[in-house]
């Protein structure tokens, strides 16, 4: 996992609540056996019309937001299906941070597993950030160490993040490696469960 420390990038506003993972990456892009190359499916139905032509009104089709690194979204971002293709697609597109009033649990987890930073800020702050982003060609800064988002105007927003999630993101830690350090405890659990609840072990 690539560590996340600081990010300075443009930000795109997506002022829609309940953006679900079907919208982030529609199912026809889930038939891949790879992690890469999903950017082309990102927000596909919002970005393209039935003939595959870019839709004019969609923010990521606006040249000013073509190279966005931050997405500012509405409430309950990433609800719906558990597909990890959603953070993969966002990252493949170049987005490394999503700011929203709230995130769906599974999406948040999946994002953290992939070094994509979910930042929770109150709705008013998100609205203020969207307003600044609409100014277009300006850079936003996200500093995970200090837990701040700095808007182009210089206005700074502090956010909370679970200390453990922060530690892992900053170090780019592989969760499996960390857990395997507990191998002995896992072995011991299996032995004791087999004794206490013998029916749990499939024949």
């Amino acid at each position, binding site marked *: 996992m690539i560590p996340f420390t600081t990010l300075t990038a443009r930000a795109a506003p997506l002022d829609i609540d309940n953006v679900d993972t079907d919208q982030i990456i529609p199912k026809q892009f889930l*038939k891949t056996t790879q992690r890469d190359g999903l950017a082309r499916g990102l927000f596909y139905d919002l970005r393209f019309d039935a003939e595959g032509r870019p839709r004019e009104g969609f923010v990521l089709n606006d040249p000013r937001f073509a190279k966005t690194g931050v997405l500012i979204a509405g*409430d309950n971002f990433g609800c719906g*299906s558990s597909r990890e293709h959603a953070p993969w697609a966002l990252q493949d597109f170049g987005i490394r941070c999503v700011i929203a009033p709230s995130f769906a649990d599974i999406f948040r987890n*999946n994002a953290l597993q992939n070094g994509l930073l979910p930042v929770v800020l109150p709705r008013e702050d998100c609205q203020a950030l969207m307003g600044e982003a609409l100014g277009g060609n300006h850079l936003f800064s996200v500093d995970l160490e200090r837990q701040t988002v700095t808007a182009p105007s210089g206005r700074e927003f502090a956010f909370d993040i679970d200390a453990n999630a922060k530690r892992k993101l900053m170090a780019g830690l592989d969760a*499996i490696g960390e857990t395997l350090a507990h191998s002995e405890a*896992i072995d011991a659990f299996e032995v004791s469960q087999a004794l206490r609840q013998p029916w749990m*072990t*499939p024949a």
Partner: protein
Amino acid sequence: MPAMAGKTLYDKIFDAHLVAQGEGGEAVLYIDLHLIHEVTTPQAFAGLAAAGRKVRRPDRTLAVLDHNIPTEGQALGVAGIADADSRAQVEALKRNVTANGVPLFDLGDPRNGIVHVVGPEQGRTQPGMTIVCGDSHTSTHGAFGALAHGIGTSEVEHVLATQTLRQTRSQTMRVTFTGAPGPGVGAKDFALALIARIGTSGGTGYAIEYAGEAVRALSMEGRMTLCNMTIEAGARTGLVAPDETTFAYLRGRPGAPKAGAWELAIAHWRGLVSDPDARFDREIEIDVSDLAPMVTWGTSPQDAAPITEFVPDPETTDDAPRAAAVRRALDYMGLIPGQKLTEVTIDRVFIGSCTNSRIEDLRAAAAIAKGNKVAPTVRAMVVPGSGLVRAQAEAEGLDDIFRKAGFDWREPGCSMCLAMNPDRLAPGERCASTSNRNFEGRQGRGGRTHLVSPVMAAAAAIKGRLTDVRDFL
């Protein structure tokens, strides 16, 4: 010193699976059962192989093929899958399970079907277990008093490698359904009523326990429907404490405890209840006595209303973001504010999905379909949840009833629930569906989905429009 408050069922199961307290307060939880399918695993197995790792407990892992398979010609196996990408995913899963010794129910095997139908049907889902699957509707298995939830592909890889998951404890919410529902009203309506009440993010961060006499009176199928929809309320886990209904369902199933072990298991399972003095972080009570059958009108499961109601008018709310969301939903759905819900005509009906494709769902729908005809303007399909459900339905003659009424009788799979296979809506087509998500494009690009119960779906098929099923009773 005040006495310590009792424990919730969620906390009991969580604590019983604590392997280690990981760094930063994250628990390492043992996983008793890991269900896998073709869509969310290829990258996990690739990661595993790249790191030179193996599946730790193939015997606690079970693979099915469900998400992108066609619902006809399954006896042909992989050769029957026309779409090259879907075929590649199915082949990848078969390669991966063979390399790792993981059991698989292959295409055409009657035991194959939708992962959340198969686990319980095989008796692999049991009270007190921790169960995960790379699919958000894993919450279904909570109907048995198991701590079950969906995970992402990185977590699938983590579970394959370690048989554990890193978790932080959720808050707890108890939803108590009181009263007795009237005829034509059931678990799907309970779920939609709850989501309409608390919203699709109302359960975020919580594990929900369902309680109350209306839940106790539900069959296992009904409890599964309820727990299945939990994720649509934002909660990853829904639980129902096990009871005699649970034990009766499990007894004799292939994966259930045998002979002597059965008594031991039951004794343990009886303790799987929230203590009377357990405290929940949030409590909700819903009286189902006067609940009408529910239907969704928008593009989120929270956009649900009793069938007796009208399409909402966005101009009547002062909540600007909500009005915008309603306007956007109605525009997509092609509905007019103030329109009677029973005047909405439909083109398609889908009876299936892990929410409502079990034998009881099919029996209920067939009872409405019997002796009636699907409206000439409607194409209706029934997709059983597994090969065994299909066989059972055929043994009871339900397939005959459906066919005679003009329904298409299909082979098992996820089908038009997410339309990754050839079953899907055309742009603008409107569908009464027993599935769980009415998101934009969920059942096909431009498709319009109204979520309903199986009996409501059957009634809609016959009338050609959304209908109050109570007119048929």
